[in-house]
């Protein structure tokens, strides 16, 4: 299904708006007085409806129209913000999202959807049928004019129709002349005032003589009905933007018009004049008055007009709002560009190649030993490094958007479970690669649900323990040595060590004789087919998920870790690499081969003393005393079975990852190296301890070590125990 580009944008924007609407609703639930949020919700619904009109998406228009009407009442204070309203509108939001999905798939809603549609509309209509709290919105009728009564609070004073026309670019080409419509209008009534909109006209150089750029704002006096007036424009209806407002229209309609109207930045006065709300003379008078007042107290024109009682305050507010929005959207438009993700990937690939080529040039310059040449290449590599960083930064997004989605999850799940659970979010400005963000959302959802279901106890259990009746779930993110750490923590009961162990033995995952550390036991929950919930609940407890969570995280070269304190809560930390493609590496050599480790994990480099080496050979001891701390190490020479004798002086590269340290014994330290990680082919997929390879400037291949994996291989715990025994 090939979608029109603008429709695609509509879909994206609508989803964004629904997201904002949901966030606003959740805030509103806590703080029902927040008028700004009510307005935000209204605007979201209004925009979705308005834009749906452009694409003729009738099923969206008809539904959102009802929702918007209720929201309008909420906004006017005629319907109070209650829990039911918030819940209803969360459902409404979900449903609109479903409708948008239909648009995205290019399908129309099926019968089931329509049942939901009708159900929601019925529930919304309850609020519309409610008696009106204020005497608003007098019926639109031109008879009132005859009696000379000035219209209600809500209706504007003009007694003319207001017609807003924007002719489409193909008007001339399809043989129409905009003036013929104006002439025809004069046969059915009288054009009282017309303002020609020239803002859309491009400069002479850019203008296309056969495209129509014209628009008119017309104040029109006529006894004709709306249908008759509409029929004037039948021939150009498809191509044009036409709005017709009856005489004494309610202020809201003018607000709508101003909302929809041209996007050019216009002066407030002009907007009002063009809408026929003010005549130019009225505006001039107001301007004069403003000038008079200015000497005493400078008032904005909007205020002046209200004081002179020439316009309704709401009309001025709408005009001001429009001005502000035009400015804001101009600002944000110029700040953001939507880019095809493929183009970005291509750029990053090229940067990768550039880095490799640059490394080659540096190497040759080194060999030549030419000072000037060396300086030039070092300048270039500094720049290449910066280019690389900014290219990668393009892909970085803040995790906040992902986090805030959990407000809804937590709200819904806590309602479902009958627990009062609050979500605290921190570190939302932490950035990580977009591809990682997309893939982390599902595992995170599972962890959050799991914590709420199994971790946090019910209020009856909590209160006797001296905990607050409401549970707290925290989402946190931060950067730590080249990776991002995402924590999901709860203040629940913590993991039950004995229960997990019993279950694992029961399931045959471990044998009863095995002695396991707490950590090992906690990790059992990631085994396939493990579930400890006594009752299988709707949310979790089916024994699928935690193993999938772990697999998903591992697929991103990440790890997951559990810290649990019985009775106080549990924290799951997910640790992920920041990027998947390019890293700052540290190049080391063993025999004739080169290896790369991530520079972020390197803490220091020390020399392996002769006596430590001797004891490693004689006692197979593989740790050293690093300033009073046990440092286990791996000899890469042994690990990769390199041939030949080790040199007299060997070095240890001290690496740190997830609060663990390990030393790697290497022959020589070569230095920093920008590394483009290339994945290994299928054949080598299962080689442990190697994360990929890279190409050096010389053209030879270096393997990229997967340090977390090597730590597992080294079986650190047992080495430490060995060290304890010895001391």
């Amino acid at each position, binding site marked *: 299904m090939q979608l029109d580009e603008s429709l695609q944008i509509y879909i994206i924007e609508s989803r964004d708006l629904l997201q904002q609407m949901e966030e606003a609703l959740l805030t509103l639930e806590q703080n029902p007085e927040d008028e700004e949020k009510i307005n935000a919700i209204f605007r979201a619904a209004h925009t979705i409806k308005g834009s749906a009109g452009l694409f003729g998406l009738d099923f969206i228009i008809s539904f959102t129209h009802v929702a918007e009407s209720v929201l309008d009442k909420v906004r006017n204070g005629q319907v109070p913000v209650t829990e039911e309203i918030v819940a209803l509108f969360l459902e409404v939001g979900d449903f609109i999202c479903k409708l948008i999905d239909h648009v995205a798939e290019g399908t129309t809603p099926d019968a089931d959807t329509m049942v939901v549609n009708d159900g929601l509309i019925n529930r919304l209509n309850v609020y519309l049928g409610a008696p009106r709290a204020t005497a608003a919105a007098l019926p639109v009728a031109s008879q009132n004019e005859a009696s000379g009564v000035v219209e209600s609070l809500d209706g504007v004073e003009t007694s003319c129709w207001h017609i807003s026309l924007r002719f489409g670019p193909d008007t*001339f080409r399809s043989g129409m002349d905009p*003036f013929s419509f104006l002439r025809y209008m004069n046969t059915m009534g009288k054009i009282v005032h017309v303002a020609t909109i020239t803002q859309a006209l491009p400069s002479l150089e850019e203008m296309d003589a*056969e495209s129509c750029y014209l628009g008119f704002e017309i104040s029109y006096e006529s006894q004709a009905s709306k249908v008759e007036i509409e029929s004037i424009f039948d021939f150009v209806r498809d191509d044009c933007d036409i709005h017709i407002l009856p005489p004494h229209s309610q202020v809201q309609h003018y607000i709508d018009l101003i909302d929809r109207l041209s996007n050019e930045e216009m002066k407030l006065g002009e907007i009002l004049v063009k809408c026929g709300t003010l005549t130019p003379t009225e505006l001039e008078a107001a301007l004069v008055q403003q000038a008079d007042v200015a000497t005493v107290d400078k008032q904005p024109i909007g205020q002046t007009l209200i004081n002179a009682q020439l316009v309704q305050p709401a009309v001025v507010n709408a005009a001001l709002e429009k001005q502000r929005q035009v400015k804001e959207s101009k600002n944000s438009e110029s700040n953001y560009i939507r880019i095809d993700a493929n183009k970005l990937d291509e750029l990053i690939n090229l940067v990768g190649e550039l880095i490799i080529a640059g490394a080659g040039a540096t190497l040759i310059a080194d060999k030549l030993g030419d000072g000037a040449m060396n300086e030039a290449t070092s300048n270039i590599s500094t720049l290449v490094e910066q280019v690389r960083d900014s290219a990668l930064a393009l892909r970085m997004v803040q995790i906040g958007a992902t986090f805030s989605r959990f407000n809804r999850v937590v709200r819904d799940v806590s309602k479902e479970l009958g627990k009062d659970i609050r979500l605290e979010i921190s570190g939302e400005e932490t950035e990580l690669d977009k591809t990682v963000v997309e893939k982390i959302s599902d595992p995170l959802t599972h962890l959050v649900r799991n914590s709420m279901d199994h971790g946090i106890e019910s209020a009856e259990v909590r209160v006797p323990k001296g905990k607050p009746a409401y549970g707290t779930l925290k989402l946190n993110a931060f950067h730590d040595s080249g990776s991002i750490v995402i924590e999901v923590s709860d203040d629940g009961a913590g993991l039950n060590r004995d229960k997990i162990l019993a279950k694992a033995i029961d399931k045959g995952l471990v044998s009863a004789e095995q002695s396991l550390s707490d950590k090992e036991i906690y990790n059992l929950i990631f085994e396939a087919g493990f579930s400890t919930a006594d009752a299988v609940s709707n949310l979790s407890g089916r024994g699928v998920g935690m193993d999938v969570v772990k697999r998903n995280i591992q697929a991103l070269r990440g790890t997951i870790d559990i810290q649990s304190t019985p009775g106080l809560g549990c924290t799951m930390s997910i640790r992920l690499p920041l990027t998947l493609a390019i890293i700052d590496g540290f190049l080391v050599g063993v025999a004739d081969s080169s290896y790369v480790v991530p520079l972020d994990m390197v803490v220091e480099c020390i020399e392996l003393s002769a006596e430590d080496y001797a004891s490693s050979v004689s006692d197979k001891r593989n740790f050293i005393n690093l300033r009073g701390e046990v440092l286990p190490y791996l000899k890469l020479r042994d690990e990769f079975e390199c041939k030949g004798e080790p040199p007299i002086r060997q070095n240890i590269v001290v690496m740190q990852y997830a609060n663990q340290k390990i030393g790697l014994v290497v022959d020589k330290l070569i230095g920093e190296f920008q590394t483009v990680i290339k994945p290994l082919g299928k054949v080598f997929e299962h080689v442990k301890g190697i994360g990929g390879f890279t190409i050096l400037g010389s053209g030879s291949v270096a393997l990229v070590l997967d340090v977390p994996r090597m730590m597992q291989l080294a079986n650190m715990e047992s080495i430490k125990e060995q060290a304890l025994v010895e001391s």
Partner: protein
Amino acid sequence: MPVMINTNEARCVLTFSGELNIYNAAETLSQIKAEMSNTLPIHVDLAAVDEADAAGLQILMAIRLHTLSHGLAFQLENPNEAVMALIELSDMAGFFGVTQVFTDIAA
């Protein structure tokens, strides 16, 4: 030739004749783009125009906007009935300065 453009030291005169409408709008505009001055006062003579439509008026509007954005003086001379009808219909008399002689001076 729907438009003749004569430029001397003092001003640039655009003399339109015959039809000023969609049928020759493209030709007219390309001529104007090529020859019209960015610096001199612009005089538009419409005496010989006998038919005009919105596409034609749109070109006049673009010329007028051009003079406004470049701060040039603009004068519309001898608008005949065909053009005046449109200018009145669209309430653009003030915009074109046809009721009085316009004297925009560059700031």
